[in-house]
């Protein structure tokens, strides 16, 4: 059979994968702290005997777009966003450290400061932050320190209880896991960084650029159509060959 048919087929199939990546970005256009996935295609050679013509396409998700999402002010005490670069350390479901940009926190009935997804936020010594209940007022300061006013205490009796672990690893060292959290590619622990600043009472929106995603989607669609056209051409060539060989 003609290799052209198979080469075009991988092209079309990989375009479909790219489209799924773009579709996921658009589905998360409203998800707090979401970082858009990037997608690119790579050539995969499958040379054999004969002419080296078979180069397949392969779609990859090399990294994420790490630009900041737009800040939305919410005014809620337990909402924080990161100003510029930086990450919040949380505990994933296996108990390991992972990074998130989602600063939409709650306090569980046991006093654990956690994200809305239920992951505990890490503080000093990489331990989950426990808020001594009951508290009347909780302030998360711009440097990540948490100050509380115990119930019944006078207005100026703020006491520092912990500090959210904030780090600033190089974006190239991070990989997004299948739960949407980021981890170090080399498995090294993250170092706290005192220069990371928080914005109180705000959340970081998704950094998905809808227009860009739609444009990519259209270009994927056209590429896909071209691959189909190639398959059609392969079919027509085949037909022509058959009719040439037919005995009249």
């Amino acid at each position, binding site marked *: 059979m003609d290799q052209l048919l198979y080469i075009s087929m991988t092209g*079309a199939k990989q375009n*479909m*994968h790219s*489209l*799924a*990546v*773009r*579709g*996921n970005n*658009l*589905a*998360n*256009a*409203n*998800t*707090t702290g*979401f970082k858009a*996935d990037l*997608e690119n295609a790579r050539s*995969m050679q499958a040379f054999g005997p004969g002419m080296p013509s078979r180069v397949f396409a*392969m*779609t*990859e*998700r*090399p*990294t994420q777009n790490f630009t900041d999402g737009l800040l939305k002010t*919410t*005014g*809620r005490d337990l909402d924080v966003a990161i100003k510029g670069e930086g990450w919040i350390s949380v505990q994933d479901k296996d108990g390991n450290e992972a990074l998130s940009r989602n600063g*939409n926190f*709650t*306090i*569980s*009935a046991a*006093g654990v400061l956690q994200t*809305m*997804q239920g992951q505990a936020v890490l503080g000093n010594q990489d331990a989950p932050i426990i808020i001594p*209940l*009951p508290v*009347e007022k909780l302030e998360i300061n711009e440097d990540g320190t948490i100050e509380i*006013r115990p*119930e*019944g205490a006078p207005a100026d009796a703020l006491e520092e209880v912990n500090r959210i672990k904030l780090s600033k690893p190089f974006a190239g060292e991070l*990989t*997004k*896991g*299948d739960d*949407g959290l980021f981890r170090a590619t080399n498995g090294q622990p993250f170092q706290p960084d005192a220069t990371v600043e928080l914005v109180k009472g705000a959340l970081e929106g998704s950094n998905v650029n*809808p227009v860009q*995603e*739609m444009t990519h*989607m*259209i270009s994927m*669609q056209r590429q*896909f*159509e071209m691959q*189909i056209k190639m*398959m*059609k051409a392969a*079919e027509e060539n085949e037909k022509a060959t058959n009719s040439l060989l037919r005995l009249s």
Partner: protein
Amino acid sequence: MHPALWISKTGLDAQQTNVSVISNNLANASTVGYKKSRAVFEDLLYQTINQPGGRSSQNTKMPSGLMIGAGAKVIATQKNHDQGNVQTTDNAFDLMVDGRGFFEILMPDGTTAYTRNGQFGLNDEGTIVTPGAGYPLQPEIQVPEDAQSFTVGEDGEVSVRLPGQTDSQVIGQITITDFVNPSGLEPRGQNLYLETGASGAPQNGIASENGLGAIRQGSLETSNVNVTEELVNLIEAQRVYEMNSKVISTVDQMLTFATQQL
């Protein structure tokens, strides 16, 4: 079938829920004591198609793989318990909690519910009850039939002046209940909330003491819904919905093209 169809479907679903939450907020924009909700989104699991670090040949590894996310979903609706605006009504039975805390209400089935809506009234027996359903306020307070005036102090002390007397007489005490995590309360309609495992246990106390809010007579707490904010959220939700439906129609066109051409 094509994964992008299902991915965009999750996006449509999530935005539809978001619109429902926003419209419920707008519908309650003038409900006394109503606390606005917001939808919390999360990205779904990622499906690994090519594992990063997988072998591309005997001696080489692929630098990056392909993981496709499965879309988005609304994981929670979060109540924002910020204080609403103050509306002065000068009605003696209109009470509001200025600060933290809830009024305690006895439900017909014997359980306790909590509310921020202080539009109270009296039933035929002179008991202070909620305006709609007539559930009694706890601790129960009986106002004498011939009371000339009705006063509630900032600390919740209820006093009345009876005919022929110069001094007011204390007839009861309204207490305030607070929760560690009010966002964890379960809203059950009629402006009432129920205790859950996430809210923590109710802590009953005297108003304006130990960090509890003060009781203000003759005022009501309006809904804390900001109409402009909700309208902006609505526009955003609508556009994200439209873009997700665009993905579905694009995939559909691609599949149509493939089936017709081949």
